[in-house]
Structure formats: C-alpha cells, structure tokens
C-alpha cells in the first residue's frame, strides 16, 4: 500500500514529528515499502482467531490502597528542561 504525501504528513502530525518536504518524499518510499512487505499477512485466514495482546501468564496483580510514593517534587523536576518553582513550564497553551 503506497502512502501519499498527505498521509505521511498526517501521521507525522499525529506523532508530533516535524518533517521536511524531502523527508516526506523519502518516508513515502520507506513506509510504503514496509507496509507493502507487511501485506503478506493478508494471505493468512484469521477468521475466528481471538486476538492476542500479550503473552503474560499472570493475572492482573493489584496494589493495596496505600500512599507510599510522591512527596518528591524536587526529584520529579530535577531533569526538567524548563521550570518555574515547582511547576513544569511550556509555551502558553490556548484552550
């Protein structure tokens, strides 16, 4: 399945990755190649097969309702590229 430039741009937008015009062209070829190769899966009859999301043999474990974390704003913010006091900051968002 060949991707058109608009689709490549739409996906890149969804993934929040800036792409230049040249990159769009290259990605079109690469992604179309990968998706074309993946199309071999269409030859398998999967009707009636239950989808498998994971292979864990566990039952979902549950935690007790106990507060045993938090209280470490300094550590949470220590790697922040931008902050004011104990807030992370980003360019102003208009809702």
């Amino acid at each position: 399945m060949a991707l058109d430039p608009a689709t490549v741009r739409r996906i890149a937008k969804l993934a929040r990755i800036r792409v230049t015009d040249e990159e769009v062209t290259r990605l079109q070829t690469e992604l179309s190649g990968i998706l074309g190769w993946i199309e071999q899966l269409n030859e398998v009859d999967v009707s009636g097969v239950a989808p498998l999301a994971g292979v864990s043999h566990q039952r979902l474990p549950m935690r007790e309702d106990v507060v045993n974390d938090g209280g470490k704003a300094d550590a949470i913010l220590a790697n922040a590229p931008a902050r004011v006091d104990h807030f992370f900051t980003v360019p102003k968002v208009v809702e």
Partner: protein
Amino acid sequence: MTLCDLSLAEARDGLRRRDFTSTDITTDCLDAIAALNPKLNAFVTVTAERALEQAAQADRRLAAGETAPLLGVPLAIKDLFCTEGVRTTAGSRILGPFVPPYESTVTANLLRDGAVFLGKTNMDEFAMGSSNMTSAYGPVVNPWTRHGDNAQLVPGGSSGGSSAAVAARLAPGATATDTGGSIRQPASFCGIAGIKPTYGRCSRWGIVAFASSLDQAGPMGRTVRDCAIMLASMAGHDPKDSTSADIPVPDFEAACGRGVKGLRIGVPREYRSDGMSPEIEAMWQHGLAWLREQGATLVDVSLPHTKYALATYYIVAPAEASSNLARYDGVRFGLRQDGSDLQELYENTRAAGFGAEVRRRVLIGTYVLSAGYYDAYYLRAQKLRALILRDFTEAFEKVDALVTPTAPTAAFAMGEKMDDPVTMYLNDVFTVPANMAGIPGLSVPAGLDSAGLPLGLQVLGKPFDEETVFAVGAAIERAAAFATLPSLRAGVAL
C-alpha cells in the same frame, strides 16, 4: 593473560577463593575499556570511579567472609537500564542529559547480589535496530574481522555494545534486552552466548520501554553457564511490573550440567527457508548431530505461521513503540527544542531527538493504529500472534526444545544492508518468533563460517523452562568447543 580473560564463573570463583580482588579484576576491565573503547565504541558511559568504589566495597565484604552470588564481579550494563545517578541515554539524543533518580529492578537485583558496574553500553536507539548503526552515539565495532579483510563489521543489535564488550573481554558479562532478537543476534555476531528468558521472568521496571509486550531483559556472557549465573540474579518477581511472573527462580547454573540424554529436540522445518546460506545450514546440521550424539532425539516439527512472525512484529512493535515513546516530548526530562507554541515544541523536539529509524517506526506504529487501519493491521497482527503462539504450544506438546540457527547470516560490514529498512529487518527472522510467543531463546556460539566469523545456534524452550534451554545450549557448547577469539580483545596489542 589478564583477569579479563576469565569467564564470569571463573571470576566469581576466583574472587571467592581470594585468588585476586574485585579491585584487581575491575581495574583490568577498566584498563581494557580505556584501551579498546576508543576503537570499539562499546561503552557510552564508563563509570570508573563508581566501579572502583563498588569493587573496594566488595573486597571488604569478601574479606569479611560474606558471600553473594556476584560479589565483586564486574559487569557492563546496556544503556537501556535506568541506573540511579548515572546518565541513561537509550542510545538516543532525545533523553539528553537525563539522569534517572531510580535504579531498574534488574540492575538493582545485580547490585543486591554484589555486582560491580563498569559503565553503560552502546546500543541501537531505543533498541530499534540489528546493527547498532542507529545509535545516536555512533556505531559499535565488532571485535571480529573477516579473514584477510579489515572491513569494520557490525556487532549486531540492538545490544551491540554489550555483545562487543563481552566478546572483546572488556567485561565478563553484560546485561542486554531483547524485543525481537536484540540479545541473540548480537551474541551470534560476536561469538558469545546470550539468553532472552521467558516474558515475565525479568522485571521490565526501570528499563526504557520499546515494545512492552515483547521486551525482556537477559544476560550476555562468554559461556552458557555465565548466562545462567547472571540470569539467576537478574530474574525474579517484581510487584512493580504487572507482567512480571510470580514464580520461583530455579537453579539455572545447575541446569547447565544436566545433559540432553532423553530430550526430544524439535527441528522446525519452516526455518529451512529457501535463501538460507549453505554454511548456516551446515552449522545447524552439526548442532543437531551433536545433540543426537549426546542422547537427544530429533523430531521434525512444523511451525506454519512462524514465517509471518517478522511482518507481524513490524506491526506490533512499532505500534507499542509509537505510544511508549510519546513521553519524550521535551516537557519533563531530556531534550527540548523550543517552538513558537507547544505543538511546535513537540514537533521540533521529537524531530531533533529521534534518529531516522526511530522516526520511521514511530510513524509506522502511528499509522497502523490510526482510525481506519487498526483492524487491517494491528488487530490482524494480534490474531497472527495468537496463531504463532499456538504453533509453539502445539510443538512443545511433542518436544522439549527447538534448535534453529540464530541469524540468517554472520556479522556484516558497516554500511551493508542499509539500502532499505526491510533488508535490515530480515536479520531478526529467526529470533522474532520467540518474542511473539514469549518463550525463552538462547544463542550459543557453534562455529565459524568460511570467513572466520562466528555463527550461533538458537535454542528455544517452553515458557519458564529456561533450565532445559540451558541444558541444551550447554550441550551444544561442549560439543562445539568454540575457542576462537576475536582479533580485538583485552590484552592484545592494537
């Protein structure tokens, strides 16, 4: 002979006998790293000072008669494991100067058992790659070269730094991770052993996630026994990982000596693909013959959907990755590239922070999950995954383990297989099915090809039956008597 030449088991035993100190062996490893890393680029970060402190502490404990499974043993840590206070890059620019304020469960387990950490090893960016060429910190050089050819070879990937470090004897063992073959393929390329255990055997907590339903940590060592020793320390239930298995960790080291008499070894006929090189085919037959000679029965088995595993993987893994990597947005840690508004900040940060292969996979993953395509790609892939698992489940009703080649080729040269992404992806064709099914897989060096490069054989086992996998792997190892050394290694003048 330096202490770098010791296997992990020999180092451990020598330390216990007080033949030498942890400071001695750690110093030798650090010296070897200093000498060879500029050439190999196996380490992104070397924590020499910290290593010597840990070694000195281990020496005090050893002197006091303490025992711990890995007390004083130096190890290399793949840079995907978060290490408290030590920069962790995942091979990516986007993590920037990120220093984790926490220690991954696996590395914490190793520290608990007395290990000394030499540093963080290079890797394909976010573990996406089979050559280590996608690292933001430069490629890793395979310590092996072809006869009569100086071309630099790739160490495989994504755990290429770990495999090169262990093969070149910069460390007796290393941690690694395997999402589609990232332990086994580089182990094969570098002539060492490595095991991806059963999904859930090692905690994923604190390991930078690539594809959560496939990622598993495992060890790399120069021998099967070394892997068994390390895995025993790395593994174990972790309540912080909901997918971690709450079952006891058996004595893996003891399992290495079990032998294969009476075992039924499956030979999956679909692995005999048309394109398989005669040398790989020959090595496979050797391995099977060795097992038969040691008392195993060979059984022809069929895994009809296994040929679809790789294409299935390239839906599942990118889909999960596209979501797992959304957190790298320049807000709370890592790289930030400013923009006029938040959306631009995101787009600039992620364009600058992610390399080409990661961008490709994030885009593929975004696409296969997007509205209108989910059923055709992701849902279909999940169904195929069910079929792939069913194949293995049925095969393991007849056999105790499967033996296959680890990779379709020996190590290739840097720059090869770079023309289109799918060619590179085909490296993992034999290893990916085990990740899809969550079963354990070990690569063990079995011999050399005509160019003098190592080739590995892969042993696949039932879920949580790493013991049989170790037993079979050790049997191949004994028969192969693989003793050739790479040209670049500790103690050898450059």
